[in-house]
């Protein structure tokens, strides 16, 4: 019997679909004879009492979840997400740099430095990538800090905002599609495959409502991993290979019959009735990986 701690924050229980998924993890672990406890920030000092840590709170190298991951890692515990994956996936510049080195097909990307905010550079980027372009902050998650710009003024405004927290931003070709593929990968095996649809009239899966602080999300269609295109699964596995062996959610776009990686996310969303819809065994596979 293994003792598994699931590191969560209060907000993880604000969405019923996520709460149900967390309960599914707990039930699956207990059915397999393991102890599964939710660990909040106040329980971090109890990490050494566990055999494995499963992080469900939002990960970022600068947030508490990273400290939890690294502490568990240093103590020799099995941890998902591992600190290296958080470090790489939490910084899109790092991710694209690795993809470039390993020839992973991605959306054409250039990096913009804080000191390059001048007319000539903006025009150069528009000439290389076309108009509009997508500006992405390195620390983006849940479709936040990803904006489309079509003129120099908005390019300058968005970049200036993103440069507050990073000296570099990624700029990509705008590639409109009706959905993004999401391939869940665990330990170099495909766990689940979904289609993240774009909400009507929007170009990304999660878009802010105009004038409101709330987000509108596109629908999610799950399909059996056996039925997903082989080339899609192969690309997802290759993209994860350059990062590590953990749990990842690979976003892929399909354009003109070709697949390109948008990004690889650590700590991918797992909502009950969505990602698990056609691949119910994902809970068991993750628990097995944690106690292996």
């Amino acid at each position: 019997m293994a003792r598994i701690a699931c590191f969560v924050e209060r907000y993880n229980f604000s969405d019923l679909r996520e709460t149900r998924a967390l309960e599914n993890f707990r039930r699956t672990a207990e059915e397999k004879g393991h102890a599964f406890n939710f660990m909040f920030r106040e329980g971090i000092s109890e990490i050494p009492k566990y055999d494995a840590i499963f992080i469900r709170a939002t990960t970022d190298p600068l947030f508490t979840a990273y400290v939890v991951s690294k502490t568990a890692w240093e103590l020799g515990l099995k941890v998902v997400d591992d600190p290296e994956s958080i470090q790489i996936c939490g910084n899109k510049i790092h991710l694209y740099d690795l993809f470039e080195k390993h020839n992973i097909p991605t959306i054409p990307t250039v990096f913009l430095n804080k000191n390059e905010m001048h007319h000539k550079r903006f025009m150069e980027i528009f000439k290389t990538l076309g108009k509009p372009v997508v500006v992405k902050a390195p620390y983006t998650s849940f479709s936040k800090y990803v904006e489309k710009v079509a003129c120099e003024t908005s390019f300058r405004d968005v970049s200036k905002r993103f440069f507050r927290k990073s000296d570099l931003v990624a700029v990509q070709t705008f590639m409109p599609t009706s959905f993004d593929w999401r391939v869940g990968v665990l330990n170099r095996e495909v766990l689940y495959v979904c289609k993240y649809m774009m909400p009507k009239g929007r170009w990304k899966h999660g878009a802010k409502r105009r004038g409101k602080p709330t987000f509108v999300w596109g629908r999610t269609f799950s399909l059996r991993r056996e039925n997903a295109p082989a080339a899609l699964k192969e690309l997802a596995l290759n993209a994860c290979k350059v990062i590590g062996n953990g749990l990842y959610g690979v976003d892929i776009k399909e354009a003109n019959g070709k697949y390109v990686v948008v990004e690889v996310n650590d700590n991918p969303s797992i909502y009950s009735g969505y990602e698990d819809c056609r691949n119910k065994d994902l809970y068991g596979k993750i628990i097995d990986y944690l106690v292996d």
Partner: protein
Amino acid sequence: MKTAYYVSMHAEVLGNPVIPSTESIIDASRTPILLLKASKAGIPTLPYLMTSSVKQIISQFAFPVVVFAVNPFSYEGYRIAGNRSALYRAVKSLSMNYKFAVCVQPLKGEMLSFKSIFGKCEQTAEVAKISEKTYETFKIPMCKLHVQTIEGKAYLCGLQPVRIEEIFPCDLERVSTEVFRMSNKGEHLVG
């Protein structure tokens, strides 16, 4: 992240040796990880608690305590809380209204903050040893160390980056001497 982080990151991706590594840049400024890795490397540290609950801190440590921020936005090093209300104020401020956790350590002696350049500093032998060992462990060429001295013994408490306005010409002189020494020894590093 600042440009220097991306320089280290790019060097690592290309497979070039670099100091500091991106891992060290992140880990050394997260106080609980700094203390955990430091104690594993044999550097004396004090017990610590990472939480955002004042009640939990009070139940574990007696006053006074030293509170460090564990978030990417607070620069100010640490705060000393001598009583419950000071602790509430410190935690509220350093946790950014309880959004992030803080790292708390007991205060049993005196806090000392100083610059460490390639592990070298102008402090007592005991403190200088901590500075050297911290450099050996994390390979951060220039940083500010927070150390607690208790009855002549020194304990590492925290590390933070040095602000540009805190770097003086004599520090740059030391950096160039050290880099010159390293390159003479045949150590080719990006950094």
